[in-house]
């Protein structure tokens, strides 16, 4: 589903009459995303951001044929929003809320898996196919079509990477913010096959963070699948404080678990290149992909 996203993919926005929903629906449309409608609990709403508003996902899907949804729901309502979307037959759901309770995330994950759908989030700025569409709020200033697939736990850190890539003339093929929570939808390892199979993608950038074992899992998958495309990584949190979540619920170090050392070691052993700073990553990409600059 992520690999085939394009400017024709029909997308709805759940919660489109809210402050966030309305403004981001407008921005997504302006970027080129095929927003075909939205949902709202407001009975009087018929139109927002230039698209029709429906009372439920089921109705929106029936009327518009939407296959993807961006849920602009607050964290405590995200689980309900996902249930509604799945019941309506949505196949790709992006939840942007920061602060979804851990055990709600488990429920969401199990329900999405049962439904055979794809979940991106929570705590994510979304995903984009630069030049085609974006689902969420990745800033336009960072987006540019090009050869690099980006996957990131952190929104802002990936903005910094994307922005600096654009400044050296490089862009992105597919950009997925997997989000900073411990329990989430699509994980780094799930995206390797997507990037491997995508013809536009010539290299993959992993923007990681301390905490959890997603980078280690990704290293293992990279070894297992065979390193079909170069994997470059930068990981934040060398100086993270032990036992405290550093902003992201998932960025929590306990003893040797989830440390930068562990992640760097496993990724390097698997054949990835891990950079100590954004500067080093960008310099390397600028050289490596000098013939792909536009």
């Amino acid at each position, binding site marked *: 589903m992520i690999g085939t996203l394009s400017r024709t993919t029909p997308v709805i926005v759940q919660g489109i009459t809210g402050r966030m929903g309305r403004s981001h629906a407008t921005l997504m449309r302006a970027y080129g995303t095929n927003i075909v409608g939205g949902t709202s609990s407001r009975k009087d709403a018929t139109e927002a951001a230039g698209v029709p508003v429906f009372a439920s996902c089921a109705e929106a899907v029936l009327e518009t044929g939407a296959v993807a949804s961006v849920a602009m729901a607050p964290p405590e309502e995200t689980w309900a929003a996902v249930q509604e979307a799945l019941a309506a037959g949505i196949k790709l759901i992006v939840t942007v809320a920061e602060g979804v309770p851990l055990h709600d995330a488990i429920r969401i994950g199990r329900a999405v*898996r049962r439904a055979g759908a794809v979940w991106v989030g929570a705590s994510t700025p979304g995903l984009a196919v630069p030049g085609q569409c974006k689902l969420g709020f990745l800033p336009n200033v960072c987006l540019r079509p090009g050869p690099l697939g980006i996957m990131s736990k952190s929104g*802002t850190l990936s*903005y910094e990477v994307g*922005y600096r890539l654009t400044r050296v003339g490089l862009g992105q093929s597919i950009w997925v913010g997997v989000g900073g929570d411990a329990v989430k939808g699509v994980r780094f390892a799930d995206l390797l096959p997507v990037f491997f199979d995508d013809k536009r993608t010539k290299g993959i950038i992993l923007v990681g963070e301390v905490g959890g074992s997603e980078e280690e899992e990704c290293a293992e998958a990279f070894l297992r699948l065979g390193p079909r495309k170069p994997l470059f990584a930068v990981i934040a949190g060398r*100086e993270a404080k032990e*036992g405290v979540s*550093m902003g*992201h619920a998932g*960025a929590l170090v306990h003893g040797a678990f989830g440390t930068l050392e562990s992640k760097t070691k496993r990724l390097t052993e698997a054949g990835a290149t891990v950079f100590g700073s954004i500067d080093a990553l960008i310099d390397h990409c600028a050289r490596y992909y000098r013939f792909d600059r536009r």
Partner: protein
Amino acid sequence: MLLIEADGKALFTAVGIPVPAGVVVTDVVPALPNDGPFVVKAQVPVGGRGKAGGVVLCNTRPEAEAAVAGMLGSRLKGHAIESCLVEAAVAGAERYLAIMVDPASYGLRVMFSAAGGVAIEQSDSVEARLCAPHPGAVTEALNDLIANEPEAWRAQVAAIGKALASLLLEKELALAEINPLFVAESGCVAGDAKVVVDLNAMYRQPVLSAMIAARPTVYADACRKLTEGFDYVELDPEGEIGLVTTGAGLSMMLIDELTARGAKPLNFCDIRTGQMRGSPARLIRVLEWITARPSLKAVLVNIFAGITDLGEFAGLLAAAVTASPGLHVPVVARLVGRNAADAKRILAAALPDMLVTEDLAEALARIDAIVGAAP
């Protein structure tokens, strides 16, 4: 977020998991449960206390008093020791028992080892089973793991596991761990309690949120997050660079880069500009916390604005700086993204001494110059 052992054990007691008799001491040692031996344990929310000297075995009351006196007021792994737990020492065979959320399987991971103790994380004796997030599934997984335990206490371990599972599910925990679990025919006892709570669930977990609110200094970072609605973590009370930054990942990376350059960041911060809604109050709060530290030499503002209007942010920053009488150090602002040019103009007019740049390298070079770090 990790709870201190005493709070973890209070949760254990509430679900019927036996713990040693003990008292939490913040000042003079009161009456003790028996004549010894005792274990004196520093109550700080961090793992590896034993190896760091935060757990001391004492044979007599005077020894325990001396250990408490030595710990209170000192620091352990970066945390001030405000209280100690003095417990009756328990001897016997040790086991390891833990249940945690397993992110990749959307389930739980049940872990058990017939060898408990502090070195367990480095050993490969821990066996694990993945299961669905339901008490019955945990019971089944644990029964499998403890099949070789002696009959004398197997049922007790199973009962403790069941209680631990319901605690984890009802309180929406990330981790509930007992290491060591003392096992004996006469009874099994949790020697330690490692409980990691989910701060995002606090709005529907009244017992846990009261527990955290009751210790505002021990859980300072969590209390701040719960009351203020954004993240601020003090990294080094003697730090030199105060950070006013947005985005967890970018803030962490900035801390890493500053540290690599020899500068000492004071704090981590994800200020969430989107929630400010036209008020400088949040910026003023952060500047207040930062300027409370006498070691401060500079403030670095780093905002990557995807959505936020930097022109509006610049107005708020100027207002906050003007409204912060305690701010006597230079402020360097790296602002990039939407309407950065407006921001530069607004700040140049309001605060001509402030360096405002779109270039992070330039901002960091200025910080280097201020704190005298080698570039």
